[in-house]
């Protein structure tokens, strides 16, 4: 009787130990670790989901799609922007489309964007990932994901910025969010980039 009890006891302990080991293993794999750097997220050009709104560039070069949680905001007269602002007026999500204006080219886009940030709006900028030859709706683009700190207010933003070449013109789409909210904002911004339509 005692031996049988002992065997069953060992069996019970083994079951408990196995369950604990499984739990520890799963938790260890599920905990967020350092994200790989340098790998550009996958993009697949696709129309915006139903319910999204659209802003066309004044020159007709492109159409920016944005989710209904954003509102159009003022910017350059030749550009369009949409954003979600906090009650205090801080940017939570930001989308912008602007016709190509300078010396930016598909092959030098990442370097151009970071150089421009450092020389204009930002005290620092760092590249996270970049890619060329990305297919967009109506064209091909080069994109960079980067983070920067603004000269005014020392705000930390992360962004995806793409130069997209259409059949007749090129334009830039930018999606940005505070760095602290980037992980949550990124899928939505990538979706807006994937829906960007150029002519």
């Amino acid at each position, binding site marked *: 009787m*005692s031996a049988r*009890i*002992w065997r*069953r*006891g060992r069996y019970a302990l083994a*079951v408990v130990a196995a*369950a604990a080991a*499984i*739990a520890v293993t*799963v*938790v260890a794999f*599920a905990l*967020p670790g350092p*994200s790989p750097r*340098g790998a550009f*997220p*996958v*993009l*697949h050009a*696709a129309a915006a*989901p139903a319910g999204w709104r659209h802003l066309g560039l004044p020159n007709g070069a492109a159409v920016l799609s944005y989710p209904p949680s954003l509102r159009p905001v003022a*910017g*350059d007269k030749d550009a369009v*922007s949409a954003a979600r602002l906090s009650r205090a007026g801080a*940017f939570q999500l*930001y989308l*912008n489309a*602007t016709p190509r*204006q300078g*010396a930016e080219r598909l092959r030098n886009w*990442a370097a151009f964007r970071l*150089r*421009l*940030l*450092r*020389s*204009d*709006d930002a005290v620092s900028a760092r*590249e996270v990932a*970049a890619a*060329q*030859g*990305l*297919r967009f709706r109506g064209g091909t683009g080069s994109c960079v994901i980067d983070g920067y700190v*603004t*000269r*005014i207010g*020392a*705000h930390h*933003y992360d*962004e995806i910025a793409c130069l997209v070449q259409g059949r007749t013109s090129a334009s830039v*789409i*930018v999606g*940005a969010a505070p760095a602290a909210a980037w992980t*949550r904002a990124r*899928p939505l911004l*990538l*979706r807006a*980039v*994937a829906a960007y339509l150029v002519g």
Partner: protein
Amino acid sequence: MTILVARVKEFQRHPRLLALPAAAGLAIALAACGSSGSPSAKPTGAAHSHPHSAPVHAAKPSAQTPNPIPQGNSGDHDADNNGGPSDGDGNI
């Protein structure tokens, strides 16, 4: 040893008690899986890969572009001249 035998007898009387530790472990595992906010999470209809995507190397810092737009609500009065996110202008 006496305690162990007593607990085993308790398990024999109430076999369901065996399920409690296992269920707890399973619950921890499921909770961990459900709460992992991975940066790679994608929304419905999220972007997918394109075979022609070609990663490029990190850009090196280079000389500043000429004629930067003045900051502090100057220049073109963009949000990015007031601490907001940078727009896509080419700085001309």
